[in-house]
């Protein structure tokens, strides 16, 4: 028995050693779940073209921040941007990659997608539990001519921490003072009412299965599940529908140049067509790279993505950044230096 075990151990060790040839050019990243599909697509194409494997794993924005701080990965990704002070304290540089939108979805028998008009204040009151029924006077006033049913509102939110929640709650805090003081904004909050679904999928499932319910999901889920969405009132006062061109409108009007460290929330941006609950997702890298070659590989990858990745992003329902912003980002990469103090990129 011992002989067999010993042999198995030895074989395992030898097999392990034999396969430990270090993969040519491999980068690892971890973080936000929101951009995972598009990063996976870009990585796949990048590997086919250059041979470098970029392994990105979605463990959550918090996880991405923790892991890049611990240097267990080459870059981190977060839906929640870090403030310039936090970046400086941890020696990190940040830049955005793609933009997406958060969409309120509902299950209302008889109401078609895009028929309902919603304001930020009403949405906050619904999620606070202040508006309890669909035919509440506030909702009726915002929707003249729409037959709102006499159903109680079932509020669905996220049970797990998420950048989507961060965007949603920050928007509600901006639009309703009550919300800001009572609940606040974070990727995970103490929800006054409602039940929590796991992931965008869990929220979508609950909403689909519960008449009279309302939830919030990433745009891709609303589209793929053909859910009933509401038109939101934007800063200009217009009611806009959630789709890629309106997310792009929000991103186009944003003042990236005056945002230090690219800390910018694309919520409630000005513009006739701008969708009010939009957000970018960000990459975090160390400003002082211990391995200059590795740092260069990471930035080269994202440079490639900016140049070649727009088509893939569109296909997967993400919104690429405007070209001007991409140039700004490239300029900011001079901050990332190697052990010798020289910028790793170009």
């Amino acid at each position, binding site marked *: *028995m*011992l002989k067999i*075990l010993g042999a*198995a*151990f030895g074989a*395992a060790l030898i097999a*392990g050693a034999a*396969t*430990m*040839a*270090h*993969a040519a050019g*491999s980068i*690892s990243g*971890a973080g936000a779940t929101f951009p*995972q*599909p598009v990063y*996976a*697509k*870009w*990585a*796949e194409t990048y*590997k086919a073209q250059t041979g470098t*494997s*970029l*392994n*990105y*794993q*979605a*463990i959550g924005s918090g996880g991405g921040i923790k892991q890049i701080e*611990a*240097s*267990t*990965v080459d870059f981190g990704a977060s839906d929640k941007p870090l403030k310039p002070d936090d970046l400086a304290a941890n020696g990190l540089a940040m830049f955005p990659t793609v933009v997406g939108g958060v969409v309120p979805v509902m299950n209302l028998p008889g109401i078609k997608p895009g028929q309902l008009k919603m304001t930020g204040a009403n949405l906050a009151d619904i999620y606070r539990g202040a508006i309890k029924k669909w035919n509440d006077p506030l909702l009726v006033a915002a929707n003249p001519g729409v037959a709102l049913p006499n159903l109680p509102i079932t509020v669905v939110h996220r049970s797990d921490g998420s950048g989507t929640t961060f965007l949603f709650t920050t928007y509600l805090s901006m639009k309703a003072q009550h919300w800001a003081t009572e609940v606040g904004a974070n990727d995970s909050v103490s929800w006054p009412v409602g039940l929590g679904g*796991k*992931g*965008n*999928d*869990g929220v979508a499932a609950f909403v689909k299965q519960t008449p009279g319910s309302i939830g919030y999901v*990433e745009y*891709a*889920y609303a*589209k*793929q*599940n053909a859910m009933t969405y509401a038109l939101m009132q934007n800063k200009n006062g217009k009611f806009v529908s959630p789709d890629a061109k309106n997310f792009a409108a929000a991103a186009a009007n944003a003042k990236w140049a005056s945002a230090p460290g690219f800390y910018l929330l694309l919520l409630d941006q000005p513009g006739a067509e701008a969708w009010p609950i939009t957000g970018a997702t960000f990459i975090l890298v160390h400003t002082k790279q211990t391995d200059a070659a590795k740092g260069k590989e990471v930035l080269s990858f994202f440079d490639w993505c900016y140049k070649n990745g727009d088509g893939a992003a569109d*296909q*997967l329902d993400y919104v690429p950044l405007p070209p001007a912003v991409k140039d700004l980002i490239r300029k900011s990469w001079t901050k990332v230096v190697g052990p010798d103090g020289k910028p790793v990129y170009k």
Partner: protein
Amino acid sequence: MSAGKLVRRRVGDLAFKAFCWVVTALALVALAAILWSLLAQGFGGLNLEVFTKSTPAPGSPGGLANAIAGSIMMCVLAMVMAVTIGVLAGTWLAEYGGRSKYGAVVRFLNDVLLSAPSILVGLFVYEILVFPFHGFSGFAGSVALALLAVPVITRTTEDVLLLQASTLREAGVALGAPLSYVIRLILWRSARAGLLTGALLAFARISGETAPLLFTALNNQFFSLDLRHPTANLPVVIFNFALSAYDDWRKLAWAGALLIAATVLAVTIVARIVAQEQKRS
């Protein structure tokens, strides 16, 4: 006995029998329902590509080859570590120190480890093998899985060794053999089937675990046999893909879940066959 009492006893008996039939039927219905969902969703996604191509981005063709390879590698390594420690520890409990206070403590703590939530084991291995070395690795994942498998093997080893007839030990001792020889050459050999069952049960347990791998092996989009870096594995792939918005990813997730369930079923059947053989011989 009065007629009334007889009737009551008969009725009670009938009620009991009916209860047993009904709950068994319920259990089988639940199983059938879950298996039906698994098969309906997963079977359509099973094809040759699942075994030959690696996990794709949404919209691209692909399969689960890297996840299958990674899971096999990590499970095998975990089992080697777990069997080594588990059999030796179970042997110690059965033959050497089991009756002492220390033995009682070890046995109790083994049961605690057996019931430990797998996510906590994953966090522990993260603290000792991922954070200090600045990198996720398949090796850390194997250690986490091994920690989950060891208590199962320890318990079954001890139970099976204690079931061996003491005449076996006495015969060995009477022939002048030292205890270690008696254990290795006689007891282990005669308990072979039970030990194998324990190992197979442990394998069934760890093959579907997600949470510990999330913080240790992470996952890998590409095919890699290098356990020193993030390693693809089926449970995490299923976890990621099943809750996504893309149909092809969800299909792969269900196919992967079906694969795991089929593997565990095969392993359970093999374990039963082996146990029957042992009982017969």
